[in-house]
């Protein structure tokens, strides 16, 4: 997938087998990119729900939030 860029300039002489391989690599890259949506949303959720209260240094509140945050895991 990451070797794709260097081959880009040489498009005219691409054999069909190579094209298939490149399409497969692109599909894989698209899949990985799409999956980033969930990762980013999860990370943002943790930061906003948990890390911001940590920054406030309120120990009691943090303990409560850590418990509450995992309370709806399903």
């Amino acid at each position, binding site marked *: 997938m990451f070797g794709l860029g260097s081959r880009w300039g040489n498009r005219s002489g691409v054999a069909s087998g190579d094209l298939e391989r490149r399409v497969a690599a692109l599909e894989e890259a698209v899949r990985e990119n*799409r999956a980033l949506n969930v990762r980013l949303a999860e990370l943002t959720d943790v930061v906003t729900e948990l890390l911001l209260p940590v920054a406030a240094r309120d120990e009691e509140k943090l303990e409560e939030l850590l418990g509450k945050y995992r309370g709806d895991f399903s």
Partner: protein
Amino acid sequence: MRSLSQLRRPGALDVLQVDASGILLGAGRERLVDVAFDGRRIWSFWVLRDGEQGEDGVRLAWPKPLRPFLDGVTDVTMTDPASDTVLFSRTVQFGERSERIEVVNAAGRPLAIDKSLKLVETFDTRDAAQVEPLLDAIDEVLGALREVGLDAFLAYGTALGAIRDGGLIGHDSDADLGYVSTYDHPVDVIRESFRIQRALTDMGYRVTRYSAIALKVHVEESDGLDRGLDVFGGFMRDGVLYLMGEIAVPFEREWIYPLGTATLEGREFPVPADADKFLTATYGPRWRVPDPAYKFTTPASTIELFNGWFRGMRTGRAGWHAYHKRTARQQPSVSDVAREVAERHPDLATYVDIGCGRGTDVAWFADRGVSAVGLDFQPYAFEAEAQRRADDPRVTFQLFNLLELRHVLAVPAWIARMPGPRAVGCVHVVERLGHRGRMNLLRAARMVLAGTTGTLHLQFLSQKGRDGYARRTGARKPLDPAVVLAEVAESGGRVLEEVRTSVSSEPGSSQVCRMIIDWNA
């Protein structure tokens, strides 16, 4: 104008044979057939789509869940659902029993095959008194969603039934709701879904997440049944409506909002503003023609899109459920990993079992005076032990999914505050995970162990023998230790010890690999 169903040519069905192996039909055209036992619809099929063409005709095998019931006598009737024309009727003896065949569940409630070939309690056998609690449940969940800021509406089969017939579809078995978010980016729609789940949980509902934007909200119906209503998230982006998990079509927001209404079993419920456009997007232009054997023909590109954006959180969950159900009566045994940890860390304060299953090791540590936390994404597995140990302050169980980053970050952050030294055990889990799941396991272990001298103790199947060990442990297939070594290195950890041992002295024995890992280099 006559409907498409009326334009279909009638004609007899050439039934050559009906027996326990299935139904054999003579050559014929594609058509939809309802099969009834003693007058009650039990299954529907499309002759050519679902049948297998052979030399002697088209053979339709009975759906697998139905087969155990095929022992006894019943009147088999086949009808054309569009015209109710009886195409075939005969008393058939299956197997040896002389009693009538009754396709019912343990409580004696009638069952039928649904469109996913599952044997379920369908609506056609529910009388008004049984339907009312479901309508109440729909009302309640719509109200709860409104309270958390979402204008939800009837979707999929529930919308189709309400809009087309004013009622629940007889061969359907669940109720579906949907909403279209005001956000237009998958990340924001997913974050909104997390928020909704929290809000509904706060309101006292049990909510199960099926994907990043699909939830099941459980309601206790007035007849005491626990019913889960599916709530599918959706959004509009660049003129396309995306509704989990089948719809990705060019659409206008005005065709959804402001919502209209439709009558379902005599009560009004919200549906998208343009019902025809919405149902065409869901079921195609022929949505007005009933089809109990309907199968979505969602384009592969749409499935791929939803898989990439939203799915992948529940991989393996059903398989583990089946495993725990199958092995529930097996004698529990303490793992070698637990004994190894106890020996290596005589001063251990907290033991964490990732993928704890029934919680045998957790209970064993607690009995030795060590606080123990059992983590598993299959709560069904540890439910019994959690109840037995409800009053034991040393025992905690927590639902934990290695495929959800929120779990992977928040649960270890909580455990890292427990007394040290802490150690982590993980027995026959990594074989069933992909790279992402295993990296998340290593990440979680590293967080749990932060600030202590503790270690992660892994055990996995490295060579599958012919001794049934892979099936007995749920490991299924072996994992190359080289893969794990590379992943540990990638996580910044080091392998302190690695041993491979046969699980018995029998020839052809399986081999397991045990690794002790830390991040204290």
